[in-house]
């Protein structure tokens, strides 16, 4: 068995937009959003892979697809070498315990009418893993304290509105960790928090990884954060991975023009820049648009004739470093 905890090959998630009644009756072609369009990667046991991209690049959808939260098509979608078969009830129950998600916004992902202890221990109750009330409280306390909310019992009967943003996110983490998962999709877990609080949450995530040999799929738009915490980075644009490799290599010597553009505009604290930032012109195209050739072509500063005709294949330029660009 390989040591890959997750293996994804040619993942596609397409959403069909509903037209108006008249449009449908007229038989106009339905608009299709290719949110994720042929993405392949694997994550090893205990590894952190960051998906970095702008909004609409398909990074969150990729994460949700792995957890079976959106319908998808894929050539291969394996968890611990086994096909993720969410339709099969028994498999789904097991899988949901081993793979968890941390959502972006702790102001919205917690039920405002539930008390902290109920939120945190809900997975145990649903899966009938606790036999007595004492056991439930004991496990809840343990989970809260591992998430840095000490003493745990002080938080039992509080409601989310009584907690600060950082504390809420710790509650979210406590409830995703209580089942002892081995793989977690973390969707922008710190983007809603003040910079001063971010560190605490990130440190907690790293500690949990070390203790439990967790693997993370870390979804973020912040390249400097991705660099800091992950082993590897995959850069996404319009549903495709443009470049993937060791985080150090992506930041210091990324080869794809999009990666280069992103690293160019990264703010470097304390360093005064000279002249205006080197930005890409325009914006990400409408995702319903059908793009022939390279998806990045309309904004690429070094495009050639072939780029708008043919989609570049993913090439391994050095071991473990993949780039999808004709010009590399």
């Amino acid at each position: 068995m390989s040591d890959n905890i997750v293996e994804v090959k040619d993942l596609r998630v397409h959403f069909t937009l509903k037209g108006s009644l008249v449009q449908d009756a007229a038989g106009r072609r339905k608009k299709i959003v290719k949110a994720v369009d042929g993405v392949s990667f694997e994550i090893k046991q205990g590894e952190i892979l960051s998906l970095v991209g702008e909004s609409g690049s398909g990074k969150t959808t990729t994460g949700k697809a792995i957890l079976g939260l959106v319908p998808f098509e894929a050539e291969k979608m394996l968890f611990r070498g086994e096909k993720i078969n969410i339709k099969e009830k028994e498999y789904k129950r097991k899988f949901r315990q081993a793979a968890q998600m941390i959502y972006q916004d702790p102001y919205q992902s917690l039920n405002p009418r539930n008390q902290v202890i109920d939120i945190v221990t809900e997975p145990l109750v649903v899966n009938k893993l606790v036999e007595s009330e004492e056991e439930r409280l004991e496990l809840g306390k343990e989970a809260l304290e591992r998430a840095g909310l000490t003493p745990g019992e002080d938080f039992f009967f509080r409601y989310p509105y009584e907690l600060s943003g950082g504390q809420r996110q710790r509650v979210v983490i406590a409830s995703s960790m209580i089942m002892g998962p081995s793989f977690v999709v973390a969707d922008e877990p710190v983007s809603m928090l003040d910079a001063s609080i971010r560190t605490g949450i990130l440190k907690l995530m790293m500690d949990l990884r070390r203790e439990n040999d967790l693997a993370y799929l870390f979804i973020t738009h912040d390249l400097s954060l991705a660099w800091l915490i992950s082993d590897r980075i995959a850069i996404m644009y319009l549903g495709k991975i443009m470049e993937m490799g060791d985080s150090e290599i992506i930041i210091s010597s990324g080869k794809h023009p999009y990666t280069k553009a992103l690293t160019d505009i990264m703010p470097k604290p304390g360093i005064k820049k000279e002249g205006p930032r080197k930005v890409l012109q325009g914006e990400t195209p409408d995702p319903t648009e059908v793009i022939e050739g390279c998806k990045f072509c309309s904004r690429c500063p070094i495009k050639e004739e072939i780029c708008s005709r043919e989609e570049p294949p993913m090439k391994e330029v050095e071991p473990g470093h993949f780039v999808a660009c004709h010009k590399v």
Partner: protein
Amino acid sequence: MKLLEVKNLRTYFTISQGTVKAVDDVSFDLDHGEALGIVGESGCGKTTSALSIAKLLPKEGKIVGGEILLEGEDLAKLSDEEIQKHRWNDVSICFQGAMNALNPVMKIGEQIAEAIVLHHKSSEKDAMKKAAELLELVEIPGERINNYPHEFSGGMKQRVMIAMALACDPKIIIGDEPTTALDVMVQAQILNLLERLRTEFDMGFILITHDLSILAETCDKIAVMYAGRIVEKGSSEDIFQRTGHPYTKKLIKCFPDIKGKKTMMEGIPGAPPNMLEIPSGCPFHPRCEYAEEVCRTSMPDNIERHQGHFVACHKWEVIRSER
């Protein structure tokens, strides 16, 4: 004469639980063509400082002391009617979350023109012409004045907001987290745009943000706020290279340094204080590793330690020598 001088500004909110000293003894100044950054955690009083300048405070809030001198004229003393002729004409604000700041059922051209008609008493036709010109200025094709907000992307809506702020040729633009909800590439585009406009029209620019990492490259001067006070201010070199306040130091370390080693940032222990019960002495002392007895009992003065570099800390010499 300076374009804007804020002296010992105090803005308090009276709520049922007591008085919140949201802005307490804040002073800064701004020249033509200069960019000032105000930075701090949520709830430190950055937005309230900005709203005080344009007197756009909610009804619980009141300026209880200090002066806001705009080319010598004290805005703090003006009545609501008198301030109206300065708003938009002299000082305009570009708010956070452009997505929600535009009226969804009004064409954007009309929204921009509204301000022009109101402040310049020009005809609607002229105002629409000016609106189209303003759109071109922020790099949106002028013919799109007849579009509704939903037809624009987030970045373009922010551009429309900037066009609106420019409608009456203000002397000062205040950007309250103008790029917070935007993607990195769009953020860079907007910051470039604001920089270009600032130099082109020689405007003063105040950038309010919690993101210290974008300040160094955007602003000439930086003021760091904590619990309603400015704890350190100076040139961006002063703040980053000659840091004098432990809070600033911690704040800088909250951002990863991609040029340096891959070490986890430090973060700041604890949380900002409840503004109804601000700690005695230096408000930062419960979170400060340098705190001594004197910090718990007496509030440090904000003293000019070096040309233009102000630090409010008893232990500033220790902190500055540590580098």
